């Protein structure tokens, strides 16, 4: 029997936090000294500190995303009207502001929040349209700058283990890490010895729950799917989902996706208790499943080496990727939805790029194929191979994990049967045949949490509020598609269709340019011949313009054709042998 157990969040840190909460918040006019004295900002103990304790000889972490300011040209955003006067304002005391105006925002930071791709050229627009576009662009710029400014509030920074010269971080054992870290973090490392029953699988909720709130969790039992509340009372038994092997919950859609032995992928709407879609994957028993947190697409691994991507709106898979020569054993998708890691029976571990091309970025042959994979919030990849867990790390936040050197390794007392990273904690939970192990992985989790989104410290009241809000903002199931941003595009097909129908209905195209009609002229110049001549003249001119334009574009096109081959080798070049 497969059980999903939920290691409860320790109560201890909460208490500790409450104490810190009562401290008087520091005001900006208070001195620096008090800052250092007050020191610990409210929040859970963070990795950075831990890291310092571990490796005191290195003052700065290479992996830290440095907030670099461009020294050359400070970029000033558009100043609001009030700050038009050039002289720095003097305040009451007569002191002059040494840094007048708003603080400069580094361009890269603002670029992160940019939504409009200005490189795409728009067709020619009228002045009215243009003004609208300008307004939209200015708005977007302002907003991105505002968002960049608010980055300042993300005070915590992730930290990683760093070996001294030549030291392999993979050799550092858990015991050493536990010794080095603070007590609260050390308490998160534990081993539950539960040899009595079979292998264990576990899951963390985005905050610490299983279904949309900790009050509910679903368990797939031998025959049917059961839903329990937090006291262990069975609330529902869903008989339409039978012989379920895997479960995934899509929190924004309130969908519980189940993969069954019978080869069906079923979507259950938890908020109303209805089955939204039951899709036949036509690939036999399904026991490899994961969700893409970015677009809520379900990834299924099959025994013929393919991974198929599913949405409840489509009867067929959105995409099918041939990943391995043997069957697929595990699939994991990172939190940004950019990378997918797969491992197969051919002992290979591959990382795919999910942005449009679905091509492998890197591949490694493991001594023994990985049976379980998991991505952490910051893109660390954990793989469980029989009784060993390997963790790989990427170069930065947005890069795939490099499989060259494992970041950490850990040996368990039993075979791995499930592994999951704990959100907002540097903890990897491992379910194995001998029980459950909670392992410390520095730098795994996102150090800054969004209190409005997933608040680990929320009260019951807040949870209830959140639940109502989340239900109100529930995303319809049919909106799940590969590119969620495509929803912000105009439905061109129906637009054209409607246009066509309108033309048909009216008998003419109301938006078409009216054909040239020569004006009548006096004194016998308006003869039919001259009218025809004039009309032809205009026609010819238009034609000439068109030809000229095409001629102008021709060399550009040729250049375009010629250039990318030379200067920019494709990203897929690496696969050419």
């Amino acid at each position, binding site marked *: 029997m497969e059980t999903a157990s939920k290691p409860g969040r320790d109560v201890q840190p909460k208490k500790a936090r409450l104490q810190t909460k009562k401290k008087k918040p520091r005001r900006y006019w208070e001195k620096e000294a008090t800052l250092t004295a007050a020191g610990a900002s409210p929040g859970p103990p963070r990795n950075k500190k831990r890291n310092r304790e571990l490796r005191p000889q290195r003052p700065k972490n290479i992996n830290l995303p440095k907030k670099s300011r461009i020294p050359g040209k400070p970029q000033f955003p558009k100043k609001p009207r009030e700050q038009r006067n050039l002289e720095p304002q003097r305040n009451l005391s007569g002191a002059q502001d040494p840094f007048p105006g708003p603080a400069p925002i580094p361009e890269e930071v603002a670029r992160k929040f940019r939504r*409009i791709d200005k490189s795409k050229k728009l067709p020619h627009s009228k002045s009215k349209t243009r003004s609208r*576009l300008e307004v939209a662009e200015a708005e977007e710029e302002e907003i991105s700058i*505002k968002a960049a400014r608010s980055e300042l509030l993300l005070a915590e920074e992730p930290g990683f283990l760093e070996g001294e010269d030549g030291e392999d971080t993979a050799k550092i054992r858990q015991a050493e890490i536990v010794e080095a870290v603070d007590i609260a973090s050390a308490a998160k490392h534990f081993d539950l010895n539960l040899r009595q029953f079979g292998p264990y699988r576990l899951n963390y909720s985005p905050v610490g729950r299983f279904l949309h709130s900790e009050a509910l969790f679903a368990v797939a039992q031998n025959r049917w799917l059961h839903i329990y509340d937090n006291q262990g009372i069975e609330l529902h038994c869903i008989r339409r989902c039978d012989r379920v092997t895997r479960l995934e919950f899509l929190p924004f859609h309130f969908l519980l996706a189940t993969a069954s032995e019978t080869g069906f992928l079923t979507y259950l709407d938890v908020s109303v208790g209805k089955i939204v879609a039951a899709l036949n994957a036509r690939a036999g028993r399904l026991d490899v499943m994961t969700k893409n947190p970015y677009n809520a697409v379900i990834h299924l691994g099959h025994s013929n080496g393919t991974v198929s991507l599913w949405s409840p709106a489509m009867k067929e898979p959105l995409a099918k990727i041939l990943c391995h*020569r043997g069957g697929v054993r595990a699939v994991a998708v990172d939190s940004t939805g950019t990378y997918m890691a797969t491992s197969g029976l051919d002992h290979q571990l591959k990382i795919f790029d999910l942005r449009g091309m679905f091509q492998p970025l890197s591949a490694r*042959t493991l001594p023994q194929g990985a049976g379980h994979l998991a991505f952490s919030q910051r893109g660390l990849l954990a793989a469980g191979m029989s*009784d060993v867990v390997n963790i790989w790390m990427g170069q930065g936040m947005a890069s795939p994990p490099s499989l060259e050197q494992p970041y950490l390794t850990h040996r368990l007392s039993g075979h791995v049967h499930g592994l999951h990273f704990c959100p907002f904690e540097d903890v990897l939970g491992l379910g194995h045949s001998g029980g459950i192990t909670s392992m410390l992985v520095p730098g795994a989790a996102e150090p800054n949490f969004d209190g409005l989104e997933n608040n680990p410290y929320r009260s019951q009241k807040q949870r209830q509020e959140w639940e109502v809000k989340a239900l109100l903002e529930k995303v319809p199931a049919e909106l799940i598609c590969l590119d969620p941003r495509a929803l912000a595009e*105009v439905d061109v097909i129906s637009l054209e269709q409607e246009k066509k129908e309108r033309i048909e209905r009216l008998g003419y195209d109301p938006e078409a340019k009216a054909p040239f009609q020569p004006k009548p002229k006096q004194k016998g110049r308006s003869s039919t011949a001259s009218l025809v001549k004039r009309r032809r003249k205009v026609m010819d001119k238009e034609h000439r313009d068109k030809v000229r334009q095409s001629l102008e574009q021709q060399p550009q096109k040729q250049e375009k054709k010629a250039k990318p081959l030379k200067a920019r080798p494709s990203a897929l070049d690496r696969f050419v042998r």
Partner: protein
Amino acid sequence: MSTVRAAESLLALSRQEELEDLPKDYPLSPSEDEGDIDGERKHQKLLEAISSLDGKNRWKLAERSEASLKVSEFNVTSEGSGEKLVLSDLLGPVKTSSSLAAVKKQLNRVRSKKTLELPLNNEEVERARTPLEHEVFNILHKNKQPVTDPLLTPVEKASLKAMSLEEAKMRRAELQRARALQSYYEARARREKKIKSKKYHKVLKKEKAKKALKDFEKLQKVNPTAALEELEKIEKARMMERMSLKHQNSGKWAKAKAIMAKYDLEARQAMQEQLARNKELTQKLQAASDSEEEKGSVEEEGELLVPDTVNEIQRDADGPNPWMLRNPFSGPKEAKVQDAEQLLEPVAHEASESKEEERPGAKEDILLNTFEERRALRKKSGLSQDAEPLRKQESEDSSSQEVLSELRALSQKLNKANQQSGKQNMTSLRTVLPVQREEPTEAEEEPLLMQRPERAHTMEELEELGKEGCFQNKEVPRPVVEGQQLERNPHNLPGAPKEKKRKEQMIDLQNLLTTKSPSVKSLAVPTTVEELEDEEERHQKQMIKEAFAGDDVIRDFLKEKREAVEASKPKDVDLTLPGWGEWGGVGLKPSAKKRRRFLIKAPEGPPRKDKNLPNVIINEKRNVHAAAHQVRVLPYPFTHHQQFERTIQTPIGSTWNTQRAFQKLTTPRVVTKPGHIIKPIKAEDVGYRSSSRSDLSVVQRNPKQLSTRHKKQLKKNSVN
């Protein structure tokens, strides 16, 4: 009776007009001169009035065909347009729109604001509440200081007004002068234009040309940069000449002359003259001496590999006609490039060396001969090459075929001409090829240098080019076929054109899955419990064996993909009715001709997204449920969906934005203050100031100028 009355009324009108024309400061007694002119004008007006009595009211523009000494200052009036002239119009040359239009514009600006805060004018500023404010207000009022608009104090306004009269007088005098001059010039030009003598014009033109030349020479001495600009202008004129059909044998005159030329010596001469003129006009001015370059070109000729025809035609296609240039082959730049190529390609170098050894000293003669031959050949084979690029584009396929066939013919002839050398080259290349095939990595190491557009050098490659074209059209998705093709032209051929390389960038599925990835060196090799190991390993091995039994996985996947592609293709519609217009009966099939005729071919859809991704099947079906949520109507000012998409790309919700940004994005269009009366919008609220004439028109017309001046004044004040 009526006519007389009309005339009278007109007279009265004109008088009135004059009265208004006079500035108010002027004394109303005109001098004798003016009285005289006035009389003339009245007379003219009367004449006009009488002439316009016959129904058609023709306004005749007052124009002077000859320059006269006496230029009435009142002649500058806008008599034609029938408007009154006001002093302020003379003062401000920049036309202002009517007040209504201005207000409208301002109102529109208000309307286009994203949020409108009402009431518009902040009267709170004026309203004094506290006693202190009252006092300040009183003082300001007493001293005639501006309370709201600090641009000019009333005193300053008054002073400006006082100044304006003299200025205006000077300005008017200047304007009058300019207009008089212009009228002289216009009259002269009109007179000259009327002269019908061709000879006169010819002489005039020549004179002008001479003068221009002289000027240019002078300019060259005095100001070389300006001369350069002038030179550029001349160059541009040359270009225009080249573009136009002037001085070519296509005009009416030229055609007539061409007919006559057979019999008439003069006509012949005239034609030749014209052609010479054309040549002269289209001749490029070249400063550098050509001898060196020519040498270079000749040398390079020697180095060039095999039939130059190949290269030449390519050049024809994309550059200007080489025969029009003085040195048909390349400037110094290209020579350099050639050198670089030589360095890069040892093979080519060898070949060229062998060629050079073979060739006797009289290379140049042969070259010249070959040129001649080629020219003749090209003339024979029609105009297909030097056709305009447009036509080329239109009929690319056919023209390319033609070019190919022609190429073959040409190069064969050439081969015959210099058999030995050609053969030698071929053989040498052939011998080298396999060697290159064995060392692809070397070639790959210098892709940046190698990948410049290269020309096909050998006949085989040319043929392969043709084949390639066929393949490209077909686009076979099967990797098997691809592999064959790979075999045939391994992509590291030295002269392989780019298309080949690009083609091979399509990922080979076999490679993708079977390439050995480096294995991970893990510290902790998983130890397995013995029994488990036995069991599991056996199990796994069996599974792996199953998986690797053949290329089943790949083959199945490819099959699946092919099916998916087929299914997604639009289907042809077959409208044939068996037995219609033919014999009917069992076992009879409609003829192929009929089937072809009634088969409606479905238009080819856009290329599949997974066309070049062999390991992926992407579903091309539309998500209808999601499409229901998409926008399907373009709102008003947008004409294209891309424009609209750009405006809706930024999310508005607080989930994606900071609180401030969210608030700003969602502010209502009209914001009102509670407890405030909202009055109808006045022009003043919008920023428009009425009473443009009475109140300092100068300030209104060009506020920039004055404001700067005013600033200066302010500065002075502050300094003092």
